[in-house]
């Protein structure tokens, strides 16, 4: 009977002391208490963060595509409006000239000037359109490549992070020291994040390729405009001679 009483007292004391001992162990390692108790929640939190990031990445990808299209349409509208405005102004000037022309030779010279300008405009328009199309097509392919690079890096990051939290969960079940489990898990996450940034660095080269494409486009567009201006200048000189002044 006495032995039973002593056993009950000892077990009671042990049950009261056990949590304190456990807490003391965690306090000594500096880890917050209950990492293993929270490991399932941590796993959910990480999954939730990746889901949210994937959603934002998808939205941003669509947003980029929409904005680029919107800008392209807006610029084309502006250019068409400007071309129409220019056409009206230019024709007004030529009509004034035509009205003041006193000889058939002058009228013919004005008509020839108008035809030369129109031909130069057609050439320039086609050259610029081709340069813009080539640029946009190649650029859009590079943008897709950039976004795919980021997506692949993100998938690797997610997979590695999920593996890390799964390992932590298994280690917790196996009774490993939870402070060590947590430290290992955090280190794995940090390494996975560094790898993500290294993988994403590959997009820098894509950025350089986009810059080179823009340079090629700029050169082609400027060259087309110079060719146009030179042609108009030559036609103008010819017309001035016909109108009686150099």
């Amino acid at each position: 009977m006495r032995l039973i009483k002593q056993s009950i007292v000892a077990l009671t004391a042990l049950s009261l002391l056990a949590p304190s001992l456990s807490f003391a162990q965690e306090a000594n390692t500096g880890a917050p208490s209950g990492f293993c108790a929270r490991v399932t929640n941590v796993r959910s939190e990480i999954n939730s963060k990746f889901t949210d990031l994937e959603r934002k990445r998808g939205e941003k990808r669509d947003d980029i595509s929409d904005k680029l299209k919107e800008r392209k349409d807006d610029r084309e509208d502006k250019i068409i409006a400007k071309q129409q405005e220019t056409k009206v102004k230019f024709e007004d000037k030529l009509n004034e000239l035509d009205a003041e022309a006193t000889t058939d030779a002058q009228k013919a010279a004005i008509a020839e000037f108008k035809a030369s300008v129109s031909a130069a405009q057609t050439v320039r328009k086609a050259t610029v359109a081709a340069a813009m199309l080539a640029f946009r097509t190649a650029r859009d392919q590079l943008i897709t490549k950039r976004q795919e690079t980021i997506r692949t890096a993100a998938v690797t990051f997610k997979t590695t992070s999920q593996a890390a939290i799964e390992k932590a969960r298994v280690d917790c079940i196996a009774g490993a020291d939870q402070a060590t489990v947590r430290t290992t898990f955090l280190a794995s996450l940090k390494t996975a994040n560094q790898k993500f940034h290294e993988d994403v660095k590959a997009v820098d080269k894509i950025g350089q390729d986009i810059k080179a494409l823009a340079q090629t486009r700029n050169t082609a567009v400027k060259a087309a405009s110079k060719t146009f201006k030179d042609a108009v200048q030559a036609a103008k000189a010819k017309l001035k001679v016909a109108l009686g002044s150099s």
Partner: protein
Amino acid sequence: MKKLLLLAGAVVLLAAACNSQRATNNQPNQTGQTAETSKVDEAVSVLNASVDNEDAINLESDDDVIYSDQTVINGYDGVSNATY
């Protein structure tokens, strides 16, 4: 008869004035320009200005849009920066 002569004189003077005006218009100014050739320059200026304006629009950069996903990339740091 006198009135008729006066009228004929007035017509002759008017015709002379008109011819003189036309000659002035076709006369090169100090820069060697006639009114017609000035109009040619103006017409060409309209064309060139339009081309410059068009080029400026075509060559506008879209970098701010293309690289706007950098905020999403940075967002991934939030996974490893949390306390857990």
